[in-house]
């Protein structure tokens, strides 16, 4: 199997503070991967780099079988290349309906001219309905998304990510602020998502990661501390000292 995302030797400095320090690792096609690490370990910054929001000072990030470099591309180009991102807070367009939000995300040509003359085909609307139903919003299409509850907004955002059909999905702390039942649902969803695409989940809750049952990368002070199964990394003395030392 070839790597879908290959990050090697990246470093980022914010005002003299090294948030990411010579970080390297890779994600395979269709892999589910959890990234854990204490607060401030650089997990969100890593996502910022892959999605083009932050430019690293050094290193390379390549994507896809032709290994295109993501560093020269802007956020929109990276998204079109097939990288989707879910933020920590739910970010949906609150002023617009659930349907409009999904149509925005639906995979289609993004150029202004093509969008201007876009009109909904039966297949598009069926797909919107299907996605909404999948996340339990099937009968809420005409509601303003600002009216939805926090959990529903999270789900809507997940449906929007599915509509984008990314090859790699980066999910930042999906379970934050969720009830235990919603967490359960979220794990199930992430596992099923990973069947058709690569998913990277950032989380610092060990219990949640255990349920994902996947390979785990531990970040600490901007670089990889350990990698392997959850049991493997939790036995690692360095990981224990980082977590317990702070805990």
């Amino acid at each position, binding site marked *: 199997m070839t790597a879908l995302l290959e990050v090697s030797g990246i470093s980022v400095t914010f005002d003299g503070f090294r948030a990411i320090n010579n970080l390297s690792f890779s994600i395979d096609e269709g892999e589910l991967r959890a990234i854990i690490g204490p607060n401030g370990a650089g997990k969100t910054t890593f996502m910022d780099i892959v999605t083009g929001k932050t430019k690293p000072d050094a290193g390379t990030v390549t994507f896809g079988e032709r290994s295109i470099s993501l560093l020269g591309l802007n956020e929109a180009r990276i998204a079109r290349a097939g990288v989707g991102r879910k933020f920590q807070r739910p970010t949906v367009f609150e002023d617009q309906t659930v349907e409009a939000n999904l149509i925005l995300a639906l995979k289609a040509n*993004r150029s202004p001219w093509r969008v201007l003359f876009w009109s909904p085909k039966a297949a598009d609307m069926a797909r919107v309905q299907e996605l909404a139903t999948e996340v339990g919003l099937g009968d809420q299409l005409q509601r303003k998304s600002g009216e939805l509850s926090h959990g529903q907004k999270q789900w809507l955002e997940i449906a929007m990510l599915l509509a984008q059909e990314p090859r790699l999905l980066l999910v930042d702390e999906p379970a934050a602020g969720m009830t235990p039942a919603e967490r359960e649902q979220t794990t199930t969803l992430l596992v099923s998502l990973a069947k058709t695409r690569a998913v990277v989940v950032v989380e610092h809750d060990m219990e949640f990661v255990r349920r994902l049952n996947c390979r785990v990368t531990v970040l600490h002070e901007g670089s990889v501390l350990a990698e392997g199964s959850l049991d493997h990394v939790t036995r690692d003395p360095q990981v224990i000292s980082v977590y317990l030392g702070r805990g």
Partner: protein
Amino acid sequence: MTRRSFFARNPSALIFIACLAVFTLAVTLMSEAYGPGLISTSFVKTLGKTLCLCLVALAMDLIWGYAGILSLGHMAFFALGGYMIGMWLMYARTEEIVVTALAQGGLPATPEEIQQGIATQIFGVVGSSDLPAIWSFAHSLPLQLILALAVPGLLALGFGWLAFRSRVTGVYLSILTQAMTLALALYLFQNDSGLRGNNGLSGLQNLPGLGDTAQDLVSIWFFWASALALGLGYLTLSWLVSGKFGSVVRAIRDDEARVRFLGYPVEVYKLFLFTLTALIAALAGVLYYPQAGIINPAELAPIASIYLAVWVAIGGRGRLYGAVLGAAFVSLLSSLFTSGRLPDIPLGPASLNWVDWWLVILGLSFVAVTLFAPKGIGGLFDRFQHIGAPDRKGAQLGPDDGSLQEQEAQK
């Protein structure tokens, strides 16, 4: 899936077009040209100019109300359009006069003589007798009309490209647009700018070749043209903001970073909107200045573009009819108060002079609208349709603080 017709999806567009048609007909039938003259020719011109201001307000609403880009420079594009059409009007009209004058000498005038005569006539006031190079196309209406769109359009394209590419947003962008319009105004104030310095261009109400046609008629023709442009502009923009494109534009206003992560080239959208609205503003200017009769660099003063924003804010941004109502309401009131026809109100030792106090009143109403009625005049229509502002009572619908309450969600 069956798709409802455009008007079924946008009932306000149909209502707007109907109102505009009735208004146009009523004014025509009351004008001096086609009726008993209940409306004076000068008031027909005021109304025609107001329609042009409504059109530029539509453009402002698209760029600010929908896309969230507070441009404070769009009246520069409006005035540039006016200058370009003004050059042809002044040139062609002067040409007629010069040809007639020279013909009285007996011999037919040579093209050089005519050219020289025109240059002296137009540029005598700034102490020059050469036609500047920028007047090279002024003899031709089609060429000058192309310039009337090309010059503002290319300026907007260039300015927008520089600004949006470096991701200038918010108040910095507003300041930059103010600087742009100020710089242009200062440039045009110079006599050697080639556009007659602070004299500007005048006599624009006299259409070349129509010297014998009364202004009664000309004014109503321009009124019709302005109404047509406003109607078409309204339909085009309603179509633009109603579909997926409008959805992207509003999304950019609300969270542009998120729109980028969906894969939309946000900068290209902004540039497209900025240029499109500049073109609409220029078109409005082309129709406005022949009715105003005169244009000078003061029209590009930064304050002009700020007024434009005030109209849209008072009318209610993010809804097209709001922009039109705001522009019509405020600019008509403004011409009433500044006409000097309203009697002063004696207040003991002092007296309230409307001409002096109008700006203060306008400023206060702007502050009042911003604070107490952010939806502007357009908000009144929501009252009718019972789209209330959130009235926070009852149990929350969701677990978080931000979600709407059950009553308000149903409205």
